[in-house]
């Protein structure tokens, strides 16, 4: 099955699942209003967005120097840095570190980059138990599913589904659909894992080059526990997450938490600059950072597409997307769903693999309006759509350019251009189309799957205008 057919099948499955759509609708409507409540003054919001955009754009411009500075500072602080070009390299590096430390049980904080690399599967195949400790990630790990949202990974499940899942895996815990009690059950289960874990793996929200600091944003405390309790901490993140200065952090932190979940700030903002020092009593004895490229340096080559890398993974573009709310995250079939997924994944993986994602967009513009770092998502998506059917043979940083081009479709657009740029031909065409309207085909490709075929009017607008006596008609 080609990518477009596979995508359409996933869309059909998602649209047939009323429970799923209900779960998404009710969860997302609340997030939008909470976000808006955090930004009562639009002028202040726009100033903060502009500043956040500049912080991220500045960091991307200076990226190679900042990464070197970051590495130097981290090394001086005692944190080891590992570079990985591919997911396989990142996974192998992490596995090597765990093996050297004889780690059997790993607790994980939330990390979308580790989803990119398929880290859990890789480690489990090699005999290491990996426990996701973020509540949402824990739930979908039990279900054997991938996150359906980058901030709220289990957003597609309702309380009954969570209750049944927990009961299936932990039958000794009394069945309940009460969210507070479900939360307490998860706390008890995971506390034991924290107490026993040999290593902790986490993501990173921002890396500060100036001071050599890894910043983690979270509400639950599982990120702190994963990075503090075991003897070994391994952080994994993308090379684009670096910022220049410590003073760049407050605006990003503020706009991230307000945009992502509508909170003035999250419960914990955790800044890690070194492993446990000789006189200290806890914290990991060794801290490692794995920096993953996985296509990011290629994206940076294009002056326009580079904007994609400003993303701070707040998920607000997803929360406001009218297509996502209907489909949910799994239908996209990629690690990152929603508008940012549509913009990022074809660049990362290739238009020839996932370029059809670009069709899952109405170009309504909502994502571009809420993006905290002003990524022009609709423009990027439109650009990728064009690139996916582009026939030019010029060089491009994009993989699979032109791969979705269809001869029939391209021929039709050529015909359209011809008609619309030659008035006589156009008049002849509209005369023929109105007079022969009964011959209009009843089936017009995908359009008539859900709609009736349009039929031209008896007369063209131009003819009607002339009859009414409009000048120049």
């Amino acid at each position, binding site marked *: 099955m080609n990518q477009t057919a596979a995508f359409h099948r996933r869309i059909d499955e998602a649209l047939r699942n009323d429970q799923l759509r209900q779960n998404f609708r009710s969860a997302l409507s609340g997030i939008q209003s909470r976000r808006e409540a955090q930004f009562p003054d639009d002028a202040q919001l726009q100033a903060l967005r502009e*500043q956040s955009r500049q912080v991220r754009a500045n960091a991307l411009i200076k990226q190679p120097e900042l990464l070197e500075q970051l590495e130097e500072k981290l090394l001086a602080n005692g944190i080891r840095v590992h570079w990985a070009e591919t997911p396989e390299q990142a996974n192998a590096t992490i596995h090597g570190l765990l093996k050297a430390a004889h780690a059997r049980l790993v607790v994980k904080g939330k990390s979308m980059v580790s989803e990119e690399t398929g880290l859990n599967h890789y480690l489990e195949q090699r005999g290491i138990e990996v426990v996701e400790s973020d509540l949402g990630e824990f739930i979908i790990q039990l279900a054997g599913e991938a996150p359906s949202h980058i901030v709220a990974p289990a957003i597609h499940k309702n309380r009954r589904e969570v209750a049944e899942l927990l009961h299936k895996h932990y039958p000794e815990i009394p069945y309940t659909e009460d*969210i507070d009690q479900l939360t307490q059950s998860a706390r008890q289960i995971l506390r034991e894992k924290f107490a026993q874990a040999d290593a902790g793996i986490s993501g990173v929200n921002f890396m500060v080059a100036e001071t050599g600091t890894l910043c983690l944003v979270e509400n639950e405390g599982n990120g702190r526990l994963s990075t503090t309790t075991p003897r070994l901490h391994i952080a994994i993140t993308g090379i684009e997450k670096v910022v220049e200065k410590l*003073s760049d952090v*407050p605006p990003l932190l503020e706009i991230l938490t307000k945009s992502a979940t509508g909170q*003035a700030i999250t*419960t914990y903002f*955790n800044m890690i600059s070194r492993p446990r020092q000789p006189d200290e009593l806890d914290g990991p004895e060794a801290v490692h950072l794995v920096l993953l490229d996985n296509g990011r340096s290629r994206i*940076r080559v294009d002056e326009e597409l580079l904007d994609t890398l400003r993303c701070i993974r707040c998920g607000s573009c997803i929360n406001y997307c009218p297509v996502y709310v209907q489909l949910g995250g799994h239908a996209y079939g990629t690690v990152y769903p929603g508008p940012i997924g549509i913009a990022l994944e074809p660049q990362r993986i290739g238009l020839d693999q996932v370029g059809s994602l670009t069709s899952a967009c109405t170009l309504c513009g909502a994502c571009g309006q809420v993006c905290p770092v002003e990524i022009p998502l609709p423009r990027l998506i439109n650009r990728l759509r064009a690139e996916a059917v582009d026939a030019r043979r010029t060089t491009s940083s994009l993989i699979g350019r032109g791969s979705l081009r269809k001869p029939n479709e391209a021929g039709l657009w050529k015909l359209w251009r011809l008609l619309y740029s030659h008035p006589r031909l156009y008049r002849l065409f509209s005369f023929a189309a109105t007079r022969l309207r009964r011959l209009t085909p009843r089936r017009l490709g995908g359009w008539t799957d859900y709609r009736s075929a349009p039929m031209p009017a008896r007369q063209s607008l131009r003819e009607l205008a002339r009859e009414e006596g409009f000048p120049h008609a």
Partner: protein
Amino acid sequence: MRESRESILRRLRANRPQAAAAPPVYRHSTGWNRERRIGEFTERMQAVRGEVHRLGRGQWVDWINREMPTRGLHRALVGSSAIGRRFAAGAAKEIELNRYDRTIESWKAQLFHDIDFGITGSLAGLAESGSLVLWPDAEEPRLLSLVPPLHIVLLEAERLFENFAQLIDVQRWTDGMPTNALLISGPSKTADIEQTLAYGIHGPKALITLILE
């Protein structure tokens, strides 16, 4: 590994996007006076179920001695800091005193199971976001503020700043970051089930700030 590093950096150096202006330094001052800062902090903290009390400087040991037993909480954990020593000296007989004075590996199970509340100081507070700022160290280790189900934090009123940007600037954090710096803004929480807020997932279920004046 070395090769990956070189090829990633080579690709990044090969392309230099157009230079943009350096970002302006983020700083906005609210001009709030001390009373206003305390009010804002308290309001934000209470909005996320954080408990806040204002006490005289010498009252906090008695407050804890009086309050904790009424809540059925007896097993206290303190560090070897001045705050820890002071509480140890004045703890009531109903309080079972535990000291965080050895490496975590030697008593992890006890820390996770046999402690009701931990007591720490704080480096600062942030009025705008309702945050406590901690720099854990050898005397007040990192897990002291994280593993016990209740965390009691002492905050000296004059250490209440407007916001994070102001704090970093005034205290010159760039001169040297600690092993771990934390902003704590309420008890542990999650909204991962149906986007419904639930408190007390992995970190402390309750957070009490004692503002000392």
